[in-house]
């Protein structure tokens, strides 16, 4: 668990740094520093660890930077389709490369569907979407053991609405580090 946490913090800083400074060479230094800090903190007090986790997740939301393909964490799909649209290619490549370069890192691909039609079919559809993304990532260098699949079908909508806009947001695969 700590390794994953440090990775998350590290990646956050990495990408945050990236969007601010556009200087990639500087980031590893910051990552090391923060890792050291949070190790001390968690040794002292468990509550601190939670604080670090919260910060990292709030930082994630700032990462919608088109210049960093790794910040793409959601892949959207067409109706009843699990084909990956070509505009997601660079994001999937970036994640695959990241996994290849960080063999101890693992991700969960969470497949979802919109509410239309039957729930069990949608569960299978969400699974196939996640599986399609996984297969792409494996072809691009990730290792099978780094990727866990889960499908929630239509059970965990991103948007609770009942129209095209909501449905589009709900047909997705989330990439969770």
């Amino acid at each position, binding site marked *: 668990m700590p390794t994953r946490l440090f990775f998350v913090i590290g990646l956050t800083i990495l990408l945050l740094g990236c969007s601010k400074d556009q200087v990639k060479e500087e980031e590893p230094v910051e990552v090391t520093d923060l890792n050291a800090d949070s190790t001390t903190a968690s040794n002292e007090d468990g509550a601190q660890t939670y604080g670090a986790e919260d910060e990292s997740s709030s930082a994630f939301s700032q990462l919608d930077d088109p210049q960093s393909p790794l910040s793409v964490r959601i892949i959207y799909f067409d109706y009843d389709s699990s084909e990956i649209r070509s505009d997601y290619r660079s994001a999937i490549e970036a994640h695959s490369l990241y996994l290849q370069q960080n063999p101890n890192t693992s991700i969960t691909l969470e497949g979802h569907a919109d509410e239309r*039609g039957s*729930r069990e079919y949608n*569960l*299978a559809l969400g699974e196939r979407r996640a599986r399609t993304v996984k297969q792409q990532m494996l072809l691009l260098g990730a290792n099978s053991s780094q990727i866990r699949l889960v499908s929630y079908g239509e059970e965990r909508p991103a948007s609770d609405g009942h129209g095209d806009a909501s449905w589009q947001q709900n047909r997705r695969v989330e990439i969770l580090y």
Partner: protein
Amino acid sequence: MKNFIRLFLICFLLLPFKSYAVLDIKITQGIEEPIPIAIAIFGWSQASGVAPIDMSQIITANLTRSGRFNVMDVQDLPQSPTEFDAISFGDWRKLGMENIVIGNLVLTESGNYNVSFRLIDIYRKKQIAGFRIPTKPNLLRRVAHQISDIVFEKLTGIEGAFNTRVAYITVKKDNTKKIHALHIADADGHNAKILVESPEPLLSPSWSYDGGKIAYVSFEGKNSSVFIQDILTGNRTRVSKFEGINSSPNWSPDGSHLALTLSKDGNTEIYIMNLTTKSLKRITKHDGIDTEPTWSPDGQKLAFTSDRSGSPQIYEVSIKSGKPKRLSFEGIYNTRPRYAPDGKSITLVHSTGNTYHIAVLNLNNGYITVLTDGPLDESPSYAPNGSMVIYATTGRRGGQLAAISVDGRIKQRLGLHQGDVREPSWGPFLK
């Protein structure tokens, strides 16, 4: 203190059922010429006090809700006879009444009850049916349902399904969290009980044919698992927890096997599990989605959904031979099959475009008859007498349940006062 707790518990148990009744069932469309019937107030053996249950009220509600009866309002009854000889046939005939149910509730010395009732044809002055039923206090409501079943069958020719239960899932929003619950309730919405509650999604309740167990899918532990829960004891076992999807449980008619969908071998495929040995037999083998298996009433075949042709359609496979045959050809989307109890048709979710409807596929000629208006209807399941289909529909207030007769002439809405309700499954006849 102990006694106080016990007293408290007893008081709690004695609270009227109504406080637990979550489903509010209303008829929204009935047949054009409903059968006129009067249900007299049942006699009560004790001089003092009131009867523990209003049998006539329960029977009245059942028959009214079926959409096939025009039941006289209790305040309009010209008399409330409890014996055959006390019926003023002339008065009833003047009112155009054709049938009357009379009955008595007798408290026995042992604290149990004898319920008796007669269904009488007013014009012919003849008894159509009459029974005495000895019963226990906690089964009085059930007896009222059984009486309703007998009256229904004698006058419509269709086996009644009032003495049955339904299972369904509710979702409540609690601040940011969602609480999912699997309930069972009597077919009239009363006597609702929660079997499982979870912050993670619950779905696909499936009844065992003896009505004693329910299989369902739960996401507790961040992945889908299939559980089987004993209704009486609440004990449950996790029967399937493979990597990937564990979904769509469906019982074999003899209760020995469970059909289910697993993705452990690559993609979603259909398996049957021997519930004694837990061994699995793989039924489908295809790159496409194969899911939503359901057992034919004779236990020889499974119907399921597959998109192997490009769009989701219904297929049928013999468990012995394993060769799937496509059943549905109309529309771009046909999913979630359930056989009618006679095995001659399948109810399913059907779409030709943007709206989703409950439909019936005739297995003799392959025609699909659409029953509901949509726009987002799902999870159809037959009543055990095959006359109605219960399903989930999405409205302004979220998910609601509804039921429609297989000829489309009778509609019921089964609403919750608040929250979302979905995934209904109509249980078997209660023994």
